[in-house]
């Protein structure tokens, strides 16, 4: 008979890289809490950690989908800037005040993000240009166009309603609305990825696109949607960013795509496709922010954060590689077992022939 899962819950938990990384995050947090008990574990500090993670987390949702398909989207930082510029221009033309204007600005940001995502997706899926090159190209193009549109000067005309509510508003007194919005996006992304057919197809396409084609999955169309999702989250992040900073940030965000991709990969999403969780990405993105905050509090130069994240990133990919190696070793690709006169010697297959 076919048996249900036999491994213990503890075994299952430790097998998930996302939960290993939770342990890492907890350890770091505990160390900082012990070293600076009255500065690290304060409502103020935890709020600022969450605020600093919020925009990265939104970008991380799109990046997780892309990386699960074994793709990469380097353009998210530039698309964020482009979308925020379009959004600010649209809102500026409408008088830069009121909720209607803010929501039209949101729509403009999401649409411009989606447009870049669609372009990335078509070039990757239909033109078969490698995702690294496509998004490296659009990374330059989106930033360049944003600079052309503004002459390189940041736009400051942002409706006060969205700055006060989205950028600095709170829910239940202390929970920043920016964080609530990011949490909602992560939740929706998680449900889409882990519970729907679309999400399952995303894993399948990342795992073996040829197998998907043979059973009739429209792989190209799915990939285009994946890059559109990444563009949409970048557009939304652009809108959140102008609500928070009260201006566009054309000069910023050059490291954003790398920070987000590093966080997603540290969170257990495999660059080779087929593996990953939104939860892991959020944890992976929290780690650099927590490190930076903690280093500042305990008086270590915050530049060390870059060094530590670099080590974590390489370690995460190393562990992923080992995991994949193990998976392959446990499969039929291992050398044939020794056969003596039709009798199996040293059988590792516990199941007999029925």
């Amino acid at each position, binding site marked *: 008979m076919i048996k249900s899962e036999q491994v213990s819950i503890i075994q299952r938990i430790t097998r998930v890289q996302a939960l290993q990384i939770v342990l890492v995050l907890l350890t770091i947090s505990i160390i900082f809490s012990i070293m600076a008990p009255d500065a690290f574990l304060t409502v103020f500090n935890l709020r600022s950690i969450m605020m600093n993670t919020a925009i990265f987390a939104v970008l991380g949702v799109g990046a997780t989908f892309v990386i699960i398909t074994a793709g990469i989207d380097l353009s998210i930082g530039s698309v964020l800037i482009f979308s925020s510029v379009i959004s600010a221009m649209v809102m500026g033309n409408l008088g830069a005040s009121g909720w209607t204007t803010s929501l039209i600005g949101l729509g403009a940001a999401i649409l411009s993000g989606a447009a870049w995502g669609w372009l990335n997706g078509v070039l990757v899926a239909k033109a078969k240009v490698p995702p690294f090159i496509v998004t490296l190209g659009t990374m330059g193009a989106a930033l360049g166009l944003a600079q052309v549109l503004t002459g390189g000067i940041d736009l400051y005309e942002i409706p006060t309603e969205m700055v006060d509510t989205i950028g600095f508003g709170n829910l239940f007194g202390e929970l920043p609305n920016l964080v609530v919005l990011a949490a909602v996006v992560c939740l929706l992304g998680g449900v889409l990825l882990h519970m729907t057919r679309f999400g399952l197809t995303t*894993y399948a396409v990342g795992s073996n696109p040829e197998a*998907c084609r043979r059973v*009739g999955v429209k792989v190209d169309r799915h990939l285009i949607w994946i890059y559109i999702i990444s563009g949409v989250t970048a557009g939304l992040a652009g809108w959140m960013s102008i609500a928070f900073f009260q201006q566009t940030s054309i000069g910023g965000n050059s490291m954003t795509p790398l920070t987000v991709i590093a966080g997603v990969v540290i969170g257990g999403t495999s660059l080779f496709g087929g593996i990953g969780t939104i939860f892991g990405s959020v944890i992976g993105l929290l780690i650099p922010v927590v490190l930076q905050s903690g280093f500042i509090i305990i008086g270590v130069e915050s530049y060390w954060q870059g060094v530590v994240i670099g080590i974590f990133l390489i370690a995460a990919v190393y562990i992923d590689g080992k995991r994949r190696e193990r998976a392959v070793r446990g499969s039929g690709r291992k050398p044939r077992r020794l056969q003596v006169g039709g009798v199996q010697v040293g059988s590792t297959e516990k199941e007999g022939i029925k």
Partner: protein
Amino acid sequence: MAERRKVDMALLEARGIVRTYGSVIALDGADFDVEAGQVTALIGDNGAGKSTLVKILSGTENSEAGEVMLDGNRVNFNNPAAARSHGIETVFQDLALCPHLDPVKNLYLNREIKRSGLLGLLGFMDRKSMRDHSVEVFTDLGSTVRKLNEPVGTMSGGQKQSVAVARSAAWASKIIFFDEPTAALGVVQTANVLDLIRRVRDKGIGVVLISHSMPEVLEVADTVQVLRRGRRVATINAADSSIEELVGAMTGKLDEEAA
């Protein structure tokens, strides 16, 4: 002597199939028959046109001439989906499984059961029915797959094979093509696969086995159809044939002797 076997009412009849690739004639008016509840072996030397024939009959490629009758009705498979909608499945040589997904998800790849109502419209899946039905399919086939929530990539070659076979068996109502299913397997696993093939056949499905292993063909097949240079040159009853006869038919040695 190659004995022509009388076929009364085949499940699938292909007649005069032609397919060329540039100046290469892969199929030169090939015929092929599949009967329900029988294992039909398709053999031939490299380049005889076996793969091309299977690709055409499973909808992966189009033929240039000839006709295919399924249950006496003319059919035309322009794409794999068309063949599948007629109950024809293929177990590919590379298995075409997603290594990161578990057997249930592989079984239901692109055929996931959606939940009823609004949740279904939003794309939510009915995991319980998918799992329950998968357990039925695996049990039914006597598959060696035991863990339904482990990624297929971590399983043995034989277990992967049985997932691929189960997927085809779950969806095929008429015919399953097995493209060299045992080429990469050891002795025990090969025996398992041949056993799976018999079980599929016993369900009344027409099984087509493409194989280079003559002992295997003789062991499991009811009928052997031999392709040579793009044509069917012999239909042999496996029960009273021998490796020598099959090899002779494949290489053309028998014809020369008869001439």
